[in-house]
Each structure stands twice: as structure tokens, then as C-alpha cells.
């Protein structure tokens, strides 16, 4: 039992400390690859030593210092190999690159000497937290978005390349190559390792938040793939959201995002039925909702709105909160939700937002009003291949009692739907329309 507890402890420390230790070591050695290898090795040593010798007093400091030693070992080995080559080549090797190695090493040794003082400050203040530099570097706009997402999961969350590949349904070599290329670009183009200037911060923060939200959505949308990995993605996104809040304590923006993710995630257990079929909000067993997440989300939304913050995340979080507060579907405050969707359409006008607004208006002001908005949206042709458009139409037609039209709309949604939980739901509704409607 004791060993099990200890191993679990190490897993937990890995999850919690990987990003922070790696971020610190990247700062020290100036290289993503070298730091990653060294931190990985430090954790390997920890797994061997800690169960026998017990946890060090300060596991993080231990990991940083072990990783630093590992990095120095790597540099020394590389230098020895180079010297060997120098001999072989009768010392014709480029002297400049040897000098470079020398200075790398003395730099490392210097930072090792002042480690005791450095660690003390590192443990207490999050002001020194290098994860902020790391996340802004990973989400630099000069990197492709899919690369931003992959590198953030690898470096900050410590997910393995294999786990990331599985989560995004990409072959392992493709994902490995994507990560290698991304790190190469950071090095070759000298993408800086720091928090952006005040002037650039809002834009850059938006990119970071979008990456976190993409990770969450990838996990939340049951579009395809392994459920377990997907649930983990949601948890990682929430963890990243928490880190961002912790790192930017005075900024409401990351709090709005965290609230939104918590409130969506609170419905996790209620969203799928015993056969993995989709259970809509209306039909969910609300006692399965995670009350802790709802309470935390509520406090965050209220603080964000009090601060006067009204971006798309804040408004969506407010909508999610109204749903979470209704103990039965009938108690849902649809007029206020429809009003928030009106606001969201101003702040963040996208066809998908308009689609949701039409559905909310249908609930608040009657199905016909919602159908009218959906028809306008369909006429613009922007959501042509999107199954949720006919699905939303079918839903409002069903509520309006127009059964044969509803059945036709369910059929066209079924042509476009891809994931099987959603397909099962639509098929069930179609059967209802056909049996009751004929």
C-alpha cells in the first residue's frame, strides 16, 4: 500500500511540477530540447530514488537542480565528443563552436552556484514563475495554431507526444515531427522566451486563451476518439486556465475562460447515457452535475461581471451559469439567456453564435420566432454543411408541433452528423416524430 501511495504521489508531482520545472530549466539552459531531456531524466531518477529514500523536502527544487546537473552532463558529453573529433581531425574543428560550449557550461555552473538563494524566492512568489514566459512562447503568433496547441500540451502539461497524437487523432510520427519543427522554429527564428510588453499583452493573451479553449473544446466535443483521453484534455485545459489566473491575478479575462470551462465541465457525467449516446441539456439528470465546479464557476462569473468584463468568454460563461442554476429545465431563465445571446452576437458575431441565439430565442419567445432567425441564417448559406443547423430547426419544429417537417429536418441532420453519440440522439428523435406524427 505504502508503495502505491508513493507512486501515486510521484504521478501527482509529475502533473503538478513538470511545467514549472521545465519552464525554469528552459530559462537556465536556453534550449527547449536540452531542458526537456534533462527534466525527463530528473523525473526518471525521482521515480527510482524517492520510493526508497523518501520525498525530498522540496521536490521542485530537487527536480530543478537534478535537471540542471543532467543538462550540464549533456553539454560536457557533447563537448568531449567534439574534442575527440577535434583530435581525429587533427584539431581542425571550428574553434568558435568550442568556445560556445565553454561559455554554455560556465554559465550553467554559475547559475548552479547561486541556486540556494534562487530557490528560496522561487518557492514563495509566483512572480518568478517561468511558466508565463513558457506559455506565451508556445502560443506565439509566428507558430501555427496546431503547433501552439501541441507544444503547450507537451511543455506545460507534460503530456507525452503519444498522448497528444492520440487526443488529436494524428499518427505519432506526424505529431512528433510537428513538435520537432515547432521547437526548431522557436530556436532558429529566435522567438523570445518572455512575457510580451504591456502593449502587446492583450492580443497575445487572447492567443493563449484561444489555445486553452481549443484544448478544452477538443476534449469536450465528443466528435470522435478515445473518451478517456478527451476527458483528460478538458482537465488539462482547466489546469492551464487555473495557471493563467494564478499568473495574472488582476486580469478578469482568464477568469472568464476558466469559469466557462468549469461550468461546461460540470455537466460531464450527465452528458452521455449508458450506451455513450448524447443526452441533451433538457434531458440530463441534473443531480449528476458537479456542484463544486458550478459553485466555483459561479463565483468567477460574478467577479468577472462585477469587474465590467464582457468578452465572448464572459458572456458564454454567464449563459452557462444560468443553465447550471436551473434545477429543472422548466426553470431555465430563457429570456435572460436570449438577451445574453443578443449581446454575444454584438461582441463576437459568428454563424455558430447566431445559431445558438436562434435556438435560445425559440425557447424564450416561441419556436416560430426562433425558426424565423434560423431561416434567415440558412438563407445566407454560411452553415451549409453543419448538422447543428438542421438539428436546431428540427428541434424547434418538434416544439411547434410540426411533426412531419421536424422529421424531414432530423433526416437532413442525420446525413451530415459525424459522431455516433449525436447520431443516436437524432435517430431517436426521428423515430419519435415518425411514430407520433403519422
Amino acid at each position, binding site marked *: 500500500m505504502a508503495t502505491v501511495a508513493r507512486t501515486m504521489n510521484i504521478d501527482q508531482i509529475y502533473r503538478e511540477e513538470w511545467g514549472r520545472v521545465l519552464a525554469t530549466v528552459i530559462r537556465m539552459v536556453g534550449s527547449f530540447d536540452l531542458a526537456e531531456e534533462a527534466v525527463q531524466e530528473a523525473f526518471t531518477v525521482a521515480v527510482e530514488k524517492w520510493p526508497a529514500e523518501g520525498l525530498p523536502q522540496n521536490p521542485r527544487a530537487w527536480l530543478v537542480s537534478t535537471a540542471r546537473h543532467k543538462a550540464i552532463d549533456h553539454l560536457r558529453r557533447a563537448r568531449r565528443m567534439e574534442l575527440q573529433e577535434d583530435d581525429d581531425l587533427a584539431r581542425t574543428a571550428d574553434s568558435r563552436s568550442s568556445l560556445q560550449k565553454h561559455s554554455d557550461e560556465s554559465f550553467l555552473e554559475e547559475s548552479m552556484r547561486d541556486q540556494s538563494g534562487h530557490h528560496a524566492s522561487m518557492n514563495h512568489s509566483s512572480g518568478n514563475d517561468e511558466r508565463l514566459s513558457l506559455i506565451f512562447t508556445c502560443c*506565439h503568433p*509566428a507558430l501555427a495554431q496546431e503547433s501552439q496547441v501541441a507544444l503547450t500540451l507537451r511543455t506545460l502539461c507534460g503530456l507525452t507526444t503519444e498522448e497528444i497524437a492520440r487526443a488529436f487523432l494524428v499518427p505519432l510520427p506526424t505529431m512528433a515531427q510537428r513538435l520537432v519543427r515547432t521547437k526548431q522554429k522557436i530556436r532558429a*527564428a529566435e*522567438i*523570445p522566451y518572455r512575457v510580451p510588453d504591456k502593449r502587446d499583452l492583450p492580443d497575445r493573451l487572447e492567443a493563449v486563451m484561444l489555445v486553452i479553449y481549443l484544448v478544452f473544446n477538443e476534449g469536450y466535443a465528443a466528435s470522435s476518439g478515445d473518451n478517456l483521453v478527451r476527458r483528460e484534455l478538458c482537465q488539462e485545459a482547466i489546469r492551464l486556465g487555473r495557471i493563467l489566473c494564478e499568473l495574472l491575478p488582476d486580469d478578469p479575462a482568464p477568469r472568464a475562460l476558466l469559469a466557462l470551462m468549469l461550468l461546461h465541465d460540470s455537466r460531464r457525467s450527465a452528458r452521455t447515457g449508458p450506451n455513450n449516446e448524447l443526452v441533451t441539456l433538457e434531458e440530463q439528470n441534473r443531480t449528476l452535475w458537479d456542484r463544486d465546479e458550478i459553485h466555483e464557476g459561479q463565483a468567477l462569473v460574478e467577479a468577472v461581471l462585477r469587474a465590467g468584463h464582457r468578452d465572448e468568454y464572459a458572456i458564454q460563461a454567464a449563459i452557462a451559469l444560468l443553465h447550471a442554476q436551473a434545477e429543472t429545465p422548466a426553470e431555465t431563465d430563457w429570456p435572460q439567456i436570449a438577451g445574453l445571446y443578443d449581446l454575444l452576437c454584438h461582441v463576437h458575431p459568428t454563424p455558430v453564435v447566431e445559431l445558438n441565439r436562434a435556438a435560445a430565442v425559440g425557447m424564450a419567445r416561441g419556436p416560430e420566432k426562433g425558426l424565423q432567425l434560423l431561416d434567415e441564417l440558412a438563407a445566407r448559406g454560411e452553415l451549409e454543411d453543419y448538422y447543428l443547423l438542421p438539428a436546431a430547426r428540427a428541434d424547434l419544429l418538434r416544439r411547434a408541433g410540426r411533426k412531419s417537417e421536424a422529421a424531414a429536418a432530423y433526416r437532413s441532420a442525420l446525413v451530415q452528423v459525424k459522431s455516433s453519440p449525436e447520431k443516436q440522439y437524432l435517430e431517436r428523435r426521428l423515430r419519435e416524430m415518425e411514430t407520433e406524427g403519422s
Partner: protein
Amino acid sequence: MKYLLLIYGNEAHWDTLKEPERMSIYKEYMDLSAEWGKSGKSLGGNELKPIATASTVRVRNGKRSVTDGPFAETKEQLGGYYLVEAKDLDEALELAAKIPSVRWGSIEVRPINPH
């Protein structure tokens, strides 16, 4: 770190501009070059002659071939460049955003391989 800022724009669009507009853009470029020259940011730069004057050389199996072009089929053509010194990519991007053509064309920012 040195970066090459490659200035892409639509030549056809440039040809439609009236003389006073062109003169004011040229002035902007001259001011920028003077400023960067003084501050040491720029290590050089030039405007290129139109793409119609370009030739492409290849040697395959020891045999040299020369062709006309590249042709101006793509939307944007390389029209000039600056070689700049910047402390990192962020500074290089900031410099690129000051080049007049950035407002209608685009600037490709390429780090120079140091050896």
C-alpha cells in the same frame, strides 16, 4: 540576430497608383531607410525592378538552363528587401510592421542562418 525582411506586393496594384501617391510612398521608404541607417537597425536594403525583368537559372545534370520569370501569376511579388539587426523575432516583426508596403502587401520575415 539578422533577419531578412522580404517585401511582397501586387505590382499591378502599384502600376495603378497615381504619381503623387507613389511619390509619397517613396518618401516614406526614404525616411524609413534613413532612420534605420542612422540607428544601425538596417544593414542594407533595395527596391527590385519589376518581376518582368526577372530570370531564373537552373543547372541540371551539368546543363545550365535559363528561363524567363518567375511569372507574375501569383498575387504578390517580391519587390524589395531590408536586411536588419534585431534582438529577437518580436523586434524583427515590429520593424517589419513599419515598412510602408505592409499596409497593402505583406512582409516575409526570415532569420539569417549565421554561418
